[in-house]
């Protein structure tokens, strides 16, 4: 099962490699990993998407919690949450495909953010599955390049992942 693990980590050099190293050393999967500063300059927020059976995910969480750089950890799968990922996708948009691609963009509520005579760059935000669906929907052979941010997530309700 897919889990989104949200972590507050010490904003120190080496914290990222400790976490990434844990996954490679113990043979766990990382589907995506994003990290950026928070409103507290001493902390970074890291969002890691992994998959595995319950025993493996439980062990992943325990091992992460053992790392001294990991200050707090939350498994978003434990509660209601919202998930977003951003994608920029460059499409071959020749004359015969331009209208269809534009329609597709509208259906997915995406935005065309760069246009040339033969290409579009489309920006799309949503749950990772929605991004997958867009890629599926693009007619074959029209994708030049895909860049995805990796998922981020936040729990619903008034409680937050804070110290």
């Amino acid at each position: 099962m897919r889990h989104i693990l949200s972590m507050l980590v010490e904003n120190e050099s080496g914290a990222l490699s400790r976490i990434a190293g844990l996954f490679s050393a113990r043979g766990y999967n990382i589907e995506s990993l994003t990290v950026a500063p928070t409103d507290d300059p001493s902390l970074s927020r890291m969002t890691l998407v992994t998959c595995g059976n319950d025993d493996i995910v439980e062990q992943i969480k325990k091992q992460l919690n053992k790392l001294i750089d990991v200050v707090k950890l939350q498994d978003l799968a434990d509660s209601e949450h919202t998930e977003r990922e951003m994608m920029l996708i460059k499409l071959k948009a020749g004359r015969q495909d331009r209208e269809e691609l534009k329609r597709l963009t509208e259906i997915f509520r995406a935005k065309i953010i760069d246009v040339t005579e033969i290409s579009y760059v489309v920006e799309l935000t949503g749950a990772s599955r929605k991004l997958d669906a867009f890629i599926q929907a693009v007619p074959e052979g029209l994708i030049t390049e895909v860049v995805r941010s990796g998922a981020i997530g936040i729990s619903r309700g008034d409680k937050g992942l804070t110290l």
Partner: protein
Amino acid sequence: MELSGAEITIQALIDEGVEYVFGYPGGAVLHIYDALSKREDQIKHILVRHEQAATHAADGYARATGRVGVCLVTSGPGATNAVTGIATAYMDSIPMVVLTGQVPTPVIGSDAFQEVDTVGITRPCVKHNFLVKDVKDLAVTIRKAFHIASSGRPGPVVVDIPKDVTDPNIRIPYAYPREVSMRSYSPAQRGHQGQIRKAVEKMLAARRPVIYTGGGVVLGEASASLVDLVRSLGFPITSTLMGLGAYPMSDRQFLGMLGMHGTYEANMAMHETDCLVAIGARFDDRVTGKIEHFCPHAEIIHVDVDPASISKTVRVDVPIVGPVQSVLQDMLSILKELGGKPDQTALDAWWRQIDEWRGMDCLRYDRGSGLIKPQFAVETLHKVTNGELYLTSDVGQHQMFAAQFYPFDKPRRWINSGGLGTMGFGLPAAMGVQLAFPDAQVACISGEASILMCIQEMATCKQYDLPIKVILLNNGYMGMVRQWQEFFYDSRYAHSYVDALPDFVALSNSFGHVGMRVEKPDELEGAMQEAFALKDRFVFLDVIVDPTENVYPMVAAGKGHHEMQLPPTMSDRELA
């Protein structure tokens, strides 16, 4: 008080109460060594002959005393040589602080002379590590290192110190912090009372209980409480390699070690138990055998200070996260409060079954052999030393024979590399033990293959007059490798024969030590007595043993406890 970074390093160690630093100088730590040389009235430095030995010696010191072992090595090769010892300590959860020199901060990342990414290289085998980039952070980082190394589940911590941080010309005010608080590090202080109560109730209801203990009992200083609990319940107890001595091994309730080379009675009791109480043990693959066959009838209670050890390989029914000592104390008071007793009738029947298994005499060997049997050598060692040794070990058959045939009755007496299985550990570890306890009898049991991996330390032993006794079980082979090749590779002994061995007696003499060789069973006891009578001398006793002897019983990798292979001297009738 204004101090330089080098002086801060040494002063911080003194303020931590460090007695010995095991180390080897080099370019990046010269400022620190200069500062050290002015303080040797308060802190002693032991010059090893290879950085691996510095880590093993500090490790041995830590295992014997329970205090943090300390090493000081230089950058680059100094640090990489230390990695094996750091990983050894990590696998066995030994508290250790390793100070490594680093190239000056302005040249970090430029492939400078003797530069390696020490923090990167050691990251997977430390509890935590630090790179100190500013002298202002030095004292507090060292305090944190000792705090992390010695609390919770202990482990090694590396502090990497660039040379410019120790610059003698940059002086700052010094005050050693007594306390450190770390918002992301707070080891469990006490187990969950409801869970402990539940565990005690299950123990009282058990009909075929077994207590299975590990190194956590030794590390957690919980021997006395363990003995109280086991005696008051009357349960059988077995132990991992790392836990030997936490419960007196010569006691009737002790079933011997369990696992791959455990006793028949211990492993069969594991297979048949209905209530397994695991205390400070981590269900290592050498203990469990094939997981699908592990304790098939048991409800499992697991006490460990590290939550990540619980349900890692074997799913447990009653997890208790907490320091072993406090959990055992809580168990004892709940037992008292409940006033209950285990079902004595069921327990009597269980002991009858266990005694039947014991009757198999699974550790017996050919006592009539004209060659010295390694088992006989260990038994003789036990007799000659009245079971009072601090015994360090290398890795292989000799290690298993020692674990089987030298009953330790006290914790911290049996010192070996269990998790990593590091050949070369024994001799330098013995140095750390002997320095910690100058008047104690310290011996290293080894094989002719293991001993050569850190043989250079005989020079260190000479320099510091360490009267260690090396008991070499010399069978000419890497015995455990040879045994596996005999069992699983149709006796094709690929590169396990140790050709071109040195003359160990002459070698010992050349280091300035006493060397002795013994080849006949009837001369062994006398030779050992002679060796231990030389109280002030390092003695190397080269014992020529039967090269074909194997370690039994054996649970082959991928087998269950009930599928043990027993010594060939037993007839099939007895096995059925």
